[in-house]
């Protein structure tokens, strides 16, 4: 009853949503349309939206224009997966400690982690460059993985902690009464129960890791074969004759892995973030 809308209100709502979604999706839609336009059409001024000869040619030609495209996409997926895996190894125990245990300096330590959100990598680039050089990691995958992990740990802890707090304590207490050690309880009772939450946090971290590959890549890595997609494509933007249809095709193909994961798991993701956001 309360949620009933009059016809006029409904029309208004849909119209407003249409405007909002246009703003959000227009650039992506135009990227897709650009990828379909033949080159002659592309460089026609003034701009013409419709073309009679839309084609998917760019999607086959892009592999020649950007010879390392497959490599870039693979690098992106590899770096994001490594970042996700390592981040989770750090995050799971720490999040559990913050969710369940009492220990000295708990609040201060949590504050320290969240304080990391204050900095983006850009502020710390100079010493980070030197740290990575000292460790001999410049121009390797690790130059992009290590800082990526550091800046995702805080968010991961924050999200997973909220999730773990919702698991009933009784199960852990039961295990404890049965004589299980703390570590055993964590490994065999808590982690299996937290799998849905781990997936949500893992996917969020993966998306974050996929998204943040630009800055560290252009700063800490000069090896073309190791560049992730955004940095690899960015190199072409400066050229005199950018074949934009192929660039857009390459960009769209390159985000397929992360879009696929997102679409596959979006239900859990939204639910998980919702749970995390409401809590505090």
């Amino acid at each position, binding site marked *: 009853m309360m949620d009933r809308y009059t016809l006029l209100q409904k029309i208004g709502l849909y119209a407003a949503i249409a405007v909002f979604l246009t703003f*959000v999706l227009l650039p992506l839609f135009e990227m897709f349309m650009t990828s379909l336009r033949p080159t002659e059409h592309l460089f026609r001024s003034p701009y*013409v939206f419709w073309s009679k000869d839309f084609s998917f040619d760019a999607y086959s030609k892009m592999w020649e224009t950007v010879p390392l495209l497959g490599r870039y996409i693979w690098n992106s997926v590899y770096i994001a997966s490594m970042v996700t895996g390592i981040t989770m190894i750090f995050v799971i*125990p720490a999040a559990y400690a913050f969710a369940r245990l009492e220990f000295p300096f708990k609040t201060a330590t949590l504050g320290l982690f969240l304080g990391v959100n204050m900095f*983006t990598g850009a502020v710390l680039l*100079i010493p980070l460059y030197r740290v990575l050089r000292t460790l001999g990691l410049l121009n390797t995958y690790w130059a992009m993985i290590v800082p990526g992990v550091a800046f995702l740990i805080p968010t991961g802890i924050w999200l997973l902690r909220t999730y773990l707090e919702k698991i009933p304590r009784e199960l852990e207490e039961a*295990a404890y009464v*049965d004589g299980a050690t703390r570590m055993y309880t964590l490994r065999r009772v808590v982690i299996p129960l937290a799998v849905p939450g781990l997936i949500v946090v893992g996917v969020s971290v993966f998306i974050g890791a996929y998204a943040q590959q630009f800055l560290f890549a252009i700063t800490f890595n000069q090896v073309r074969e190791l560049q992730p997609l955004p940095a690899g494509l960015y190199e072409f933007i400066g050229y005199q004759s950018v074949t934009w249809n192929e660039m857009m095709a390459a960009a769209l193909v390159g985000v397929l892995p992360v879009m696929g994961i997102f679409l596959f798991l979006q239900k859990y993701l939204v639910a998980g*973030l*919702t749970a995390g956001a409401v809590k505090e």
Partner: protein
Amino acid sequence: MSEAIDRHVAPKVDRTKRRVLPEGVFAWMLVAPALFFIILIVAWPLVETIRLSFTDARLGGENYVGFENYNDLFTDRRFHATIVRTFYWMFLSVGLKLVLGLIGATLLNAAIPGKGLFRVLVMPPWVIPIAIGCMGWLWLYNGYFGLLSGMAQKTGLTDAPFEFLAHKTSAFYSAIVTDVWVGTPMVTLFLLAAMQGVSRDLYEAAWVDGAGRWYRFRRITLPQIMPVLVSMALLSAIWTFNSFEIIWILTQGGPRGATTTLIVDTYKVAIGNYKFGEGAARAVVIVTLLAIFSLVYLFFLNKVNKRFGGK
């Protein structure tokens, strides 16, 4: 449930000689690896940045120069302009993100058919790498072949191709639009989540009393989501202040410095020109300004909350 655990746990443990780690020790064992990592990659470089800011470090070597870098900055007019520009950039962009996010969340929260689909459709700008989205915008802003300039010419707004990123004012506002585009989906999503956490009983009670939609929004929704809204505002402000990729890809800080924010300036000096010391001084200024901003924000937040009896 407990049977399942019995089967798992009981046979493997010897109950007679059992030593349980103290809670505090165990907790620190769990937290220590993550903490160590953060200290190595974030905290220590931060300290190192502060030290470097008192040197003239370059590729070759470094000498202690005292406050020289800071003196240079504080007397540099262009740097003052950059600070002002950065705050203007932050306030405008965050304001737009919050307003659009609030509108978007309210729309997506409406109980209408298709809302599930709409909620998914909002998210792509958040999911795809920022750099990729910016390449799309770069093409949109192209004066000769881009959609926006084309539309402007068709509708008669301009009669010649308009290069959005080539003029000082338009480049700045174009960068803002792109930044808002990147940031709005996340704000929308979190506000939507907060709205869904508001108890339906409140709305029903108000509805029974004859309160209209607008009244319910103002008196129930807004106060209830306020905690999430204010923390989103702060987080969003910090990210926008530090936003680098968008400006770098669109304009690299140009034309003639019109889109150079503090972070872009720092990057140019430190990484572009290898003036590590001068760059570090700029980084310290950024961190200090952000810390002051956050403290002031939290201070006023506290006051406002007290005055209005909020949580």
